[in-house]
């Protein structure tokens, strides 16, 4: 009995570690308070994510609703596309890093190589933090609870 319970716990633990950091649904929008820091500069705003026909789509906007970027993650091909990127981030070398980081946040399971020089943490409340140590970029996402809409 004891072994059985231990096995079930291990199974749940392994399933939990395989879930993606940022959560998304097919029928509703998931919203996160988000902060992206690049050294001393920071971009704060809201990240909105939804699974649309099997593709994970998201938008990061600032609090005024001005868009920073749109992203789309193809789960099958494990590829991220960026669109409508705000001017100061619209450089190929920045987009390359951001795409890889977003994939890390949305992937169901990250390999050791994919997590190299990155620290990804998820709290039980669903807050997510990803640090890209190589480029000193930090992403934090805190679930937005529904207030009055």
């Amino acid at each position, binding site marked *: 009995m004891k072994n059985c319970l231990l096995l079930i716990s291990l199974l749940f633990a392994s399933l939990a570690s395989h879930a993606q950091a940022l959560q998304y649904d097919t029928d509703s929008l998931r919203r996160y308070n988000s902060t992206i820091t690049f050294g001393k500069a920071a971009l704060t705003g809201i990240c909105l994510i939804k699974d649309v026909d099997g593709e994970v789509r998201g938008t990061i906007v600032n*609090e005024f*609703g001005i868009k920073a970027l749109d992203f789309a993650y193809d789960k099958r091909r494990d590829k991220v596309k960026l669109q409508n990127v705000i001017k100061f981030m619209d450089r190929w070398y920045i987009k390359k890093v951001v795409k890889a980081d977003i994939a890390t946040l949305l992937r169901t399971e990250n390999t050791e190589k994919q997590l190299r020089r990155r620290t990804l943490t998820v709290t039980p409340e669903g807050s997510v933090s990803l640090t890209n140590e190589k480029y000193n970029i930090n992403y934090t996402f805190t679930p*937005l609870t529904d*207030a*009055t*809409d």
Partner: protein
Amino acid sequence: MKHLFKYFLLLLMMLPMAANAQKTVTSAEQQTMVKKIEQTASSIKSMQCTFKQEKSLKLLGDNMVSNGKMYFKQGNKLRWEYTSPYSYIFVINGQKVMMKNGSRKDVIDVKSSKLFQEIARIMMSSITGKCLSDKKDFKVTMTKKDKMWIAKLVPQKKEMKAMFSAINLMIDSEKNMVTQVSLVEKTGDTTNIQLKAIETNGTIDEKLFAVN
């Protein structure tokens, strides 16, 4: 007879559309409208209201709604505060801009950033309607619909042009005041901000514009 009836029905259906359609105004009418708005704007020493902001998200086929409060005082003072579903405060006080998001607070000297200078100036002038006569910033076309005047502002400066294809202001023609702002982004997304419970020339606590 049957065809005549069909055409008659079609004409009947189009009449309300015609009645509700925006009507272009002459250059002279536009000047009069802008003058009235400017006069009202000049008489506004302070203003406060609540607002509802609705952002369309084309890629996600969804909307994001947020609510907040706005306070304005002559002398370059503006407080734009989001209360739901997130807390965020943006304050302009003279040459300083303060942004507060949770525990993070940034205070910027407007003089050190041309972008913030522009943002501060345009926000202030949009709320009062003073931007309508600023030809350097916008090309303005006015139309009218029922009791509303609609000002379409097409950005002329590079920074604004890169972000917005147009800013539309809905103006109450009886009060000569802006009641709705619509920001049309180049990406196709729009942000509509409705101003409600507008009060002018009341007392506003100076503490609301504190940046430190």
